[in-house]
């Protein structure tokens, strides 16, 4: 069976990131790989490029990885993290322009159904428009 798209949650708060990942796992089921990265390198509020790279690699699937972010720096740091991935992986990681919790859950449900990366992204990004 083709492996499903991996999901990464990036939040300034480790608690928000961990909690969101937990909700995603509960709702999307065990077949979807979910990882989170939250907090700055010193453990405070913020995001950490190294942790984001590790999270993406930990749920890596040939189908790709969808990244969900909260505010400002989470996006900049996620973009930087994607550029730091192996060239072969970079093209198959997308940042979804969607609300963190709702977007990640919609995206993960789509991933669980075996959809491809673009379908996962679309499902997440369309959440607000439905």
């Amino acid at each position: 069976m083709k492996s499903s798209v991996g999901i990464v949650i990036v939040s300034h708060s480790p608690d928000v990131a961990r909690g969101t990942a937990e909700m995603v796992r509960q709702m999307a089921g065990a077949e979807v790989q979910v990882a989170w990265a939250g907090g700055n390198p010193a453990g405070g509020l913020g995001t950490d490029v190294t942790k984001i790279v590790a999270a993406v690699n930990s749920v890596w699937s040939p189908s790709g990885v969808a990244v969900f972010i909260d505010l400002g720096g989470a996006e900049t740091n996620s973009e930087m993290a994607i550029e730091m991935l192996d060239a072969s992986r970079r093209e198959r990681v997308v940042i979804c322009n969607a609300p963190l919790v709702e977007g990640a859950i919609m995206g993960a449900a789509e991933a669980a159904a075996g959809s491809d990366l673009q379908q996962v992204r679309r499902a997440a990004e369309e959440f607000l428009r439905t």
Partner: protein
Amino acid sequence: MSTVARDTAAFASCLHAVCGALQASEAELSALDRAIGDGDHGANLNRAAQALIEASEELSALPVSLALERAGMLVVTSVGGASGPLYGSMLIALGRAWPALRSAETVADALDQAVDAVRKRGRSTVGEKTMLDVLVPAVRAFRLSAASGDLGEALQSMLSAADSGLAATKPLRATKGRAAYVGERAIGHVDPGAASARLCLHAVAGVLLASRREERLL
């Protein structure tokens, strides 16, 4: 001293000056950020300064171009806010573009590349209340004045442009970065990223101007 040794020594002095300035201004930068953002700019850059100081020996042993790139990576991985990738990408681009044959013009070209990296990373431009409001006019002033051939004058005009660039962020409403979330409330405050950019330029120019004065005395 050979040019390479002199460059390396200048790099080390600039590195310490920048880190010292950032650490001394942590409270001030955070206070600026509290007014319009999340208040962590000072602490974030302090963490970058700490990482750079810890690596200063390793960095100072490298050729300047590689030292700049490596410093950029350290900033990216130590900061934890958007300023990490922004300043980090700037240093990485500056290192990659650092000219083997240095002239005012080739340095200005490298600075342009560095500022361009910030523009791309932040998908931003001048007038959006960001560090670009200091960096872009500062580099432009450096280039214009460097054409006349005097590095000292070029650095001085760069600093004046940085000062007015910072002041110009005050009446702006932010459309990029965290300050964009506070909308109208950002008006009347200078941008913390622009303030830290000005601080770094002053620290670097201060070292270079002082060493020129010394050379002239010797």
